[in-house]
């Protein structure tokens, strides 16, 4: 395997690619996936897919590996003198915003910072608790006249925190939800180089997951896969999540295999067996309802699709300092590759529910 996971994840996490505006992310993904696949396409909502063709006689069964490429962020709602007001795109945590470095994507990229006004400028009721997003301001430092020329309502505002390497091959960066999973798909495609496949394997970078899984259902409709795997991130265990220990997963423990109504029980069993065969460590994540991933939409596309969820543990999810263990990305990619390579003509016939 030749993918430099660290460099690749950094390259993937850096472009904005906010929900509905994924082009900057798609550009990086395209350059990574094109050399590893036989055919590529961006669909009408922007979802990008790249396929490794199998060697079986057509029509070949299709495996869809879906990772959303969109990121959460902010959007300018109006200018107020020298300042900008913003709304959220996706699930923003207002606690982490004050003091956060951002880039305003105006007529040019403007370095800026999100700030909470001092209490004396806020209504009394809003002084004690976390300052709500509506009261926060984005400041470029520009005078009002210059700002009016460069920034407008609707401009995107993305997090500008650069990636930082922690100890033990862990990376802190923005948008690891879900570019870490996109990187796992790259690892998978790389691992499949030179390996014969029976099925067609589609690596799919979906759009608008953070605002309602909108690219997943539509792309599953077009691609009509026989099986689908949503690859996303799950909660990494750390000091901040101690009280939620039963819902968190250790960094470095391998991918979490999802189990619940969004997941086909037979497919879950197949992945578990595959991980055991390949000696890839994993954990099991109970997903008693909505998995919170693209699988929720893919599962009910067309006449229904057997779906699986693989999750990479990430700390501080939906903050600009999400933390991932690089080996979890590599293991997730390898597990996907092992599974894809194991698929034969008989797999669907053997896939049953009790």
């Amino acid at each position, binding site marked *: 395997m030749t993918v430099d996971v660290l460099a690749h994840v950094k390259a993937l996490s850096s472009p904005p690619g906010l929900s509905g505006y994924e082009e900057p992310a798609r550009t990086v993904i395209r350059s990574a996936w094109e050399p590893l696949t036989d055919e590529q396409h961006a669909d009408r909502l922007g979802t990008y897919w790249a396929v490794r063709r199998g060697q079986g006689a057509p029509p070949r069964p299709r495996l869809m590996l879906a990772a959303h490429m969109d990121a959460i962020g902010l959007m300018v709602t109006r200018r107020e003198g020298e300042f900008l007001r913003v709304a959220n795109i996706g699930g923003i945590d207002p606690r982490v915003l004050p003091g956060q470095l951002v880039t305003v994507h105006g007529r040019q990229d403007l370095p800026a910072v999100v700030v909470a006004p001092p209490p004396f400028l806020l209504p009394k009721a809003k002084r004690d608790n976390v300052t709500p997003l509506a009261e926060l301001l984005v400041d470029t430092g*520009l005078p009002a006249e210059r700002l009016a020329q460069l920034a407008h309502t609707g401009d995107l505002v993305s997090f500008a925190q650069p990636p930082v390497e922690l100890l033990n091959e862990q990376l802190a960066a923005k948008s690891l939800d879900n570019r870490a999973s996109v990187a796992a798909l790259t690892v998978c495609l790389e691992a499949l180089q030179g390996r014969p496949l029976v099925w067609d394997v589609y690596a799919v970078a979906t759009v608008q997951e953070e605002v309602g899984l909108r690219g997943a259902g539509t792309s599953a409709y077009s691609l009509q896969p026989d099986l689908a795997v949503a690859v996303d991130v799950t909660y990494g265990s750390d000091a901040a999540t101690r009280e939620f220990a039963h819902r968190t997963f250790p960094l470095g423990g391998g991918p979490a295999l999802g189990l619940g109504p969004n997941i086909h029980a037979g497919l879950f069993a197949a992945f578990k067996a595959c991980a055991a065969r390949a000696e890839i460590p994993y954990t099991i994540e109970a997903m008693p309802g909505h998995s919170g991933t693209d699988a929720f939409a893919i599962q009910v596309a067309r006449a229904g699709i057997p779906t699986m969820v693989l999750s990479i543990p990430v700390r501080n999810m939906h903050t600009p300092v999400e933390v991932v263990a690089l080996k979890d990305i590599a293991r997730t990619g390898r597990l996907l590759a092992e599974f894809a390579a194991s698929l034969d003509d008989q797999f669907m016939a053997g896939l049953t529910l009790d």
Partner: protein
Amino acid sequence: MPTRARPRARQAKAAPAVRPVSKPARPDVELLRVLSNAAAVSGDEGAVRRMVLEAIRPHVDEVKVDALGNVLAVKRAARRRAAPRLLLAAHMDEVGFMIVDHDTDGSLRFEVVGGVSERVLLGKAVLVGPRRLPGVIGAAPVHLLGSERLEMVVRPGQMRIDIGAGNQDAARRQAAVGERATFATEFAVLEAGEGGAMALRGKALDDRLGCASLIGLLRGGPYPVELHAAFTVQEEVGLRGARVAGYAVEPQAAIALDCTPANDLPDSRGRENTQYNARLGQGPVIYLADARTISDRRLVDYLRRLAEDAHLPYQIRQPGGGGTDAGAIQQTRAGVPVVSVSVPARYLHSPAALARTADWENSFRLLTLALERYDARVLKR
């Protein structure tokens, strides 16, 4: 980068030793970049001290580091006889964190050094210790917290720094108790066309702006005064370095070069913001009174007149709280007439302060003029 001074016909006659110059004096943005990125939490100012020493050595006649870590430098007057002794002070230290313990999972407990709002800590990258080990202040994900919890301010005691150590022993080896941490913010310049750099974004602009100005002033000159420069320590924990520096220098007058909060944000209720303290874009901030000192009226008048004669913008800081090194220097020995000149900046003591380039340049020009025109008569009026 050499410092260039403004054209000034009168001054050229008075002090022909000063080299002929034509361009307006400008502070050094690249110097500010390295100073802003350096870590120097109060009591641990070594990194900035080394930079200061290296930057000023070729330009001063004497330099030493005192018992607390202040850098004290002297630049002799162009004509030494009876040159007044003027002290300019800028503090090297910044607010930040100190590591105080290690949890079993390898995360670091910390305490805040100086006045940092707990509201700007969550979800920020930090650098720990002399090796600048990257870490992050973690936050539980929104998905796991109910709306009530999302509205609650998390206290620093509940926060941890995650350096990825994995366990307590590794954490102890990597980041010992007592090591300092700072925000990891990289300095950025906002170029918005039409005249280049317009705004500066970085951590610790309070008071690396002052340090960079003072270094720039030492690179210029000589002046008609004996210029004593104090790059002070421990300002953020009680103006402690300035107190001993003032005693040691025993100046005739002193100016603190600092950074003051511009709280000039809009009121969300639509009311006029009457407590802005200072405003971005309005030029250098001259202090009349803060919680620690009342500025010497003669020095204030001197600075105002200089600014007005040179058509430099300036603003008077709204009298109020806070304090600069001037407050400590004023009280040294038998007393020293003092004033503070600050660059206005927003969001001091946060991961990223914002200042406007023009304010810094105008502040630097005003201080340059103050040195070039100063004589003993300023205090006789």
